[in-house]
């Protein structure tokens, strides 16, 4: 005989199932609504001139050329600085210092850094790079700040990729008389490269969206020229979007939405690329 409490438990189960499903659909729905809202607001402004024009007081004549150029130069320097440091640190922590106390301490420290709000990195960059090292609100100061910000991401990704390398490969390398560094650089690193690459792409995607630390170090909201060297002032696409969003005129809101479409396309492209490299790498390491 089915008891009352049994049928009630069954009912709760069913009700919960549909509530939970509707929550899941809701979360996905928010994403869809966000995309539709932004596309419908901004798509009309997307044309060749929008990419080619300088920022302007007139919304219709405003473009994102300097913001895009600033963003690309900023990323270029950021990657050049953060990549070697992050990869070498990750290799050391995973391959060399796995068990010693220093590595343990650094590991706790990195997990802490990953949780520090990005605006705090801005304060660090402002004091250390802009004021003490007197770099001013330049591209290079911004790149150094962003480098410190994405360093934990690159290190963690490098470690995870190296962890996936089977020990048999290392032993084979040692067996033929290779040294530790030869084994690391010629056997372990090439094998882990796909995983490391995935992490780097995700770190770059993170750096692209950063706004707050750059505002704190003094990146300008209005830059009518393309930066030509590391000491030049700069602006980036998210900063340009922030600037347009905070204006009262409706025409600038359209510009902001159009800028967001470009920013989102770049972000999604990078994330897709990261998923693609990861899948390709997974297939390779499971041969």
């Amino acid at each position: 005989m089915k008891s009352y409490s049994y049928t009630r438990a069954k009912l709760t189960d069913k009700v919960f199932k549909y509530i939970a499903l509707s929550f899941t659909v809701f979360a996905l729905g928010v994403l869809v609504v966000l995309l539709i809202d932004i596309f419908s607001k901004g798509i009309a402004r997307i044309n060749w001139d929008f990419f080619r024009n300088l920022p302007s007081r007139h919304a219709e004549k405003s473009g994102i050329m300097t913001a895009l150029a600033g963003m690309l130069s900023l990323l270029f320097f950021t990657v050049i600085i953060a990549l070697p440091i992050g990869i070498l640190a990750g290799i050391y922590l995973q391959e060399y210092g796995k068990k010693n106390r220093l590595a343990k301490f650094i590991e706790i420290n990195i997990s802490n850094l990953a949780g520090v709000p990005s605006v705090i990195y801005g304060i660090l960059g402002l004091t250390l790079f802009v004021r003490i090292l007197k770099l001013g609100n330049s591209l290079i100061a911004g790149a150094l700040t962003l480098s410190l910000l994405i360093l934990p991401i690159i290190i963690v990704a490098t470690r995870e990729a190296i962890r996936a390398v089977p020990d048999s490969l290392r032993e084979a390398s040692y067996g033929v008389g290779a040294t530790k560094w030869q084994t690391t650089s010629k056997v372990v690193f090439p094998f882990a490269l796909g995983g490391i690459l995935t992490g780097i792409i995700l770190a770059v995607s993170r750096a692209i969206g950063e706004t707050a630390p750059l505002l704190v170090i003094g990146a300008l909201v209005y830059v009518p020229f393309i930066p030509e060297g590391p000491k030049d002032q700069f602006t980036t696409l998210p900063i340009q979007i922030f600037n347009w969003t905070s204006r009262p005129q409706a025409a600038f809101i359209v510009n902001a939405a159009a800028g967001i479409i470009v920013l989102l396309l770049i972000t999604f492209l990078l994330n897709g690329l990261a998923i693609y490299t990861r899948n390709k790498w997974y297939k390779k390491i499971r041969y």
Partner: protein
Amino acid sequence: MRRKEKLIEAVMICCSFVTVLTTAGIILILTVETVKFFSEVSFIDFVTDTQWTPLFTEKHFGILPLLSGTLLTTTIAILFAVPLGLIIAVYLNEYASPLFTAFVKPVLEVLAAIPTVVYGFFALQFVTPLLQKIIPDLNGFNALSPGLVMGVMIIPYITSLSEDSLRAVPRSLREASYGMGATKFQTAFRVMVPAASSGIIVSVILAVSRALGETMIVAIAAGQEPKLTFNPKESVETITTYIVQVSMGDVPQDSLEFKTIFAAGLSLFVFTFILNNLSFWIRSRFQNKYT
């Protein structure tokens, strides 16, 4: 050969130390400037004064309004995101087909990849006008809208981490529960969620830390008025927004006004530092519960 090996290892240690220097740099800079700040402003005023007006002629340096703004937006985000994120995690783990989960998880993670300035725009231009139709006396800048949007942003963190820890619970526990005749709902909430509780708690702590430090969403949509209020309909200012506001303005960099960002920054850093360490401690203490 041997010397080259040693040299390379030394270079790698130096690279690893960049991260330690970063932490040291952050703590040093925040503390030194905050000490200078407190040589001019009393600490008692800082924690008890209910007004924060460093940029006005009549200056008050009470952190409480910024703190209340930060806590208010964070609380709204967490109240929204934790039940939603956790229920989605339970659904994906217990009810949904593997195919559905394989589709939903990466799509949800897109939410975490969207730059925050985009969410700020969405909060100000879409969510606030929408909410104003339901709550007519809602201020154009308010704590509710960015709080909710911040919640949407952190749902994937909670869902992803919680689902991972639910998945790590051994099959035998779930099967034992089914064997006793329990429904999926009973199995999920009386067996699985308690068994995965340490991972779920970690996900919530990390989400809180993330919400406390979030800057652009609140800078765009919450207004920039430091107000000691817990009314979500009013405009507020968070610690993060204040830091951005001052560094963007033309405040002279050696003035007392400018030093306020370090005191505010240190307050924020202390909160997130405690939360991050707490989550690290829980994770390392309980992660091997079932292995």
